[in-house]
């Protein structure tokens, strides 16, 4: 529990400190969902094997919220659900995206870096596997009036993993793919839809 608390505190602190570096007022805020995540819990081949790869491995209820600045945005993501009948999955992500090519406010191509806390718990034997995973993002965001659509590729880099299982200890390693036998590098796609709250002063 101590390790989990420290991880979550570290992630929140990281974003707060990064946000506080910004000299300008926020241009707005946003909140959205990952509309594919609820479908990944359906137990059949299509939804359970391949759909997770286009839901950024988020399942069940998956929401995101963030702060927009002139050319960047800080974001937090939270999700909870059952990826199959045996496990419960909780995730918390924080990170930053910076617009590389911006058509107009909130629209354009961006890249960034995130870190996620990933906790998979076996509901029968209560074994909890936790990981801290940093990852790169590249995406395109479209804002129409107050609705945004965000299409993003998320590529894992590294993993620090631990478990409450007996006789186990923490392990760290590079981690680029969940299906190494298919591809050594495997980014996840994610789609986010949500609402933008523009700050009149900031923009």
């Amino acid at each position, binding site marked *: 529990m101590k390790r989990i608390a420290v991880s979550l505190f570290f992630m929140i602190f990281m974003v707060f400190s990064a946000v506080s570096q910004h000299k300008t007022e926020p241009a707005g805020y946003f909140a959205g969902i990952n*509309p594919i995540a*609820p*479908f*990944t819990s*359906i*137990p*059949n*081949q*299509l*939804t*359970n*094997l391949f759909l*997770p*790869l286009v839901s950024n*491995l988020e*399942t069940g209820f998956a929401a995101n919220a963030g702060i927009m600045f002139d050319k960047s945005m800080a974001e937090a993501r939270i999700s909870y659900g059952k*990826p*199959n*009948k*045996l*496990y419960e*999955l909780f995730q918390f992500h924080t990170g930053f995206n910076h617009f590389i090519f911006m058509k107009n406010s909130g629209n354009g191509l961006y890249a960034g870096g995130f870190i996620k806390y*990933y906790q*998979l718990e*076996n509901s*029968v*034997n209560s*074994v909890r*596997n*936790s*990981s801290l*995973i940093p990852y790169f993002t590249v995406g395109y965001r479209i804002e*129409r*009036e*107050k*609705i945004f659509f965000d299409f993003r590729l998320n590529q894992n880099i590294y*993993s620090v*993993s*631990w*478990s409450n*299982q*007996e*006789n*186990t*200890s*923490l*392990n*760290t*390693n590079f*981690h680029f793919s*969940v*299906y*190494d*036998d298919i591809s050594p590098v495997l980014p996840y796609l994610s789609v986010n*839809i949500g*609402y933008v709250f523009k700050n009149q002063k900031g923009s």
Partner: protein
Amino acid sequence: MNAKIKSLLIINQFFLLSGVLFMMGCENDYLTINAFEAEGTTVNYNLPDTTSTLQVAVVSLTCSKQKSENLQKISECIRLVMSANPGVELISFGEAISGWYAENSSYISSVAEPIPGPFTDSISCYAERYSLFLSVGMAEKKEGHLYNTLVVFDPNGQIIGIHRKNTLTPEDENAGYSPMKNANVVSIKDFKAGLMICADVNGEWLTREYLNAEIDIILSAFASPIGLPSFNLISRRMGAWQIFPNRYGTEDKSTYSGLIYVSDPAGNIVEHRINSESFFIYTIVK
């Protein structure tokens, strides 16, 4: 169109898509290893200080279409293993090695036997002669049905476990095998071993049975064409060692990789071989 109407339209389409996907239907008793379970690295497993050990030989065998030749191959393999290490206590063979695997039902029916029968009588003699546990997959004939079965023998040659495959693959269905809902835990020295055959790893019911039984070992039998897969995460799911024997070679249109491994309860593959008819010996502890 204002933003509110657009939002409502999006929500409406979201629920419509939900309905369509749910109408596609959920598969019962379905628990395939997926990307969610493979995320992150596996943790280190530290061998406990203990006196409970089990020396296991895991085998990949090239099978003949003739049952009598397979019996000879099994006998020769046991002799090789025991000459390599007389301390071996369990030899684990692959799925349905009494004959070829992905064949039609008339062939499977010709190699299938009742249990006990001549095939298991011979294996029983080998177990007794070398005083070891043996785990062998075979085609079984019982009350007019064909079963894909895993049989476990103790060092006295007694049958201590008969497990019939729960979750059939299309190859099993073409071969005329029937499924049977059964869970079997056998005692091998101080270890509780849950028996599984290949696609049984995808069964939710069997997984829960073995999790509740707190097994130490998943004693499986595979006929797997693929290389290193994520099957080892079954170990982590169960918190148990997995013994993964296999077949090797080409049988008509099917080719088997010969992948064999032992994975620890955290899901790490601790020893493996691939692309050959082979065996290795590993000591499991608890």
